[in-house]
């Protein structure tokens, strides 16, 4: 489903974020990417939705080569991915409900169908009662759950999360991780980048540990 081979990514100015990285992830896996900040976790996650392109090596996602992908094809790649960000990237000029509706605006759903899907996604993350609220009034954990609802509303086959629990207290963090686990249990491939070692040890999943852009174990 996702395969990295000999991937190197260096940013302008010569900083090498990833170096000769090779690994594969099968459909339905739950994988944690760990490492200290600056180890290359975010860069790794950014390569999959083609936010960044590899400097050399090959990144394959669902058989598509990210390095050589045309600009116009990128949106269609991203529709099959659910992205959860550390800073959530919610839109505060609209309601919780409208935030979740956003990914459905360009996929050709009728409004009725889109609304039904959006409510289902909000229900899954336990925010259905807050659909009319402005995201700014939500707590940190709720905002992160809203971000997850937006990521899964299109029923993606791969879910990517960059430090989803970084700004949360341990209870909210556990809730969020449990949510990822439940999506994984229905067949979604889940990649989570985190520096929270305690969280990883509790779940005992497959771990890709990064250190200075290389796999450490």
């Amino acid at each position: 489903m996702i395969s990295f081979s000999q991937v190197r990514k260096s940013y302008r100015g010569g900083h090498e974020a990833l170096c000769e990285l090779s690994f594969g992830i099968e459909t339905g896996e739950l994988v944690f990417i760990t490492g200290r900040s600056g180890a290359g976790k975010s860069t790794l996650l950014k390569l999959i939705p083609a936010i960044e392109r590899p400097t050399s090596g090959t990144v394959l996602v669902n058989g598509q080569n990210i390095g050589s992908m045309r600009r116009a094809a990128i949106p269609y790649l991203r529709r099959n991915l659910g992205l959860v960000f550390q800073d959530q990237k919610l839109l505060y000029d609209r309601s919780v409900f409208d935030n979740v509706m956003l990914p459905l605006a360009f996929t050709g759903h009728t409004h009725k169908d889109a609304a039904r899907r959006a409510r289902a996604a909000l229900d899954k993350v336990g925010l259905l009662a807050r659909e009319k609220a402005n995201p700014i009034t939500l707590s940190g954990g709720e905002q992160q759950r809203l971000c997850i609802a937006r990521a899964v509303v299109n029923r993606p086959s791969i879910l990517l999360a960059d430090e989803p629990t970084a700004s949360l207290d341990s209870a909210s963090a556990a809730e969020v991780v449990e949510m990822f686990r439940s999506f994984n249990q229905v067949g979604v491939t889940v990649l989570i980048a985190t520096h929270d070692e305690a969280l990883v040890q509790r779940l005992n999943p497959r771990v890709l540990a990064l250190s200075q852009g290389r796999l450490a174990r």
Partner: protein
Amino acid sequence: MSTWLRQHSQTLVLTLKRLARNPFATLLNIMVIGIALALPLGGYMLLQNLGRVAGQVTGHPQVSLFLARDADKTDIAALEARLKQIPGVRALRFISREQALEGLKQSGNLSDVITALQTNPLPDAFVLDTGAGAVELQQLEPQLKALPKVAHVQLDSAWVKRLESLLALGRMAVLILASLLACGLVAVAFNTIRLQILTQKDEIEVSKLIGATDSFIRRPFFHLGLILGAFGGMAALTIVYLCMQILNRRILELAQLYGSDFRLSFFGLPDCLALLAFAAILGWLGAYMSVSRHLYGIEPK
């Protein structure tokens, strides 16, 4: 097709809602565009009306043929026969010197002077109606001059030409003004949409991250440009119409003094629609330039 239509109508509604959320800024933008368009539009309307008047006056250019003093009745009859054979002469009217003098007496101001005259200083004359334009009239002139007993040929083409070239000058001025202000409109749309792109930077970034195509992201800005242009055009038409109504009150008073019922008339529906389309296209052009300039710079990091 229905998806395409639905997406466009959804975008249109969203764009209108967004405009309604900032009514003051929206109104100001539309007014700037409206005033910029109203200047050349008003000029164009005045010219159209002037052209209409000039057309009425000069529709049938006339030629006055003054005869030599020694022309007698047989000369006049022969000349009349000759004139009737000239192509381009539609109708002719003979005005004897006596008739001319009588006419002058009745026209008021000069009657005292004329009754004091011992002899009639006026010549006999023919007035020819021609179907010719200014150029053909010029060609007719030597032919008429060569006729026997013709002392003087008076064309009214000289002032027709002056009026026509004056109108052409006016049209040119309006065209230049219109081009400059069209550029102004494009610039206003460009800047408005640049600001809109900046305010929606977050939304654009998120949309790109969750798989919106470029055309989907561009669409609302194109709609915005079109709407700004069209509303600006409507504002311009309204401004010109109101100004015309105000002017018409004075013009009617003035025209009545000259025994005319002249008043300014507004554009027809096709002209109005053409202007709206033109303004909308200019707005779209500004949007297009702004979007190509600014949208690609916003990439998720």
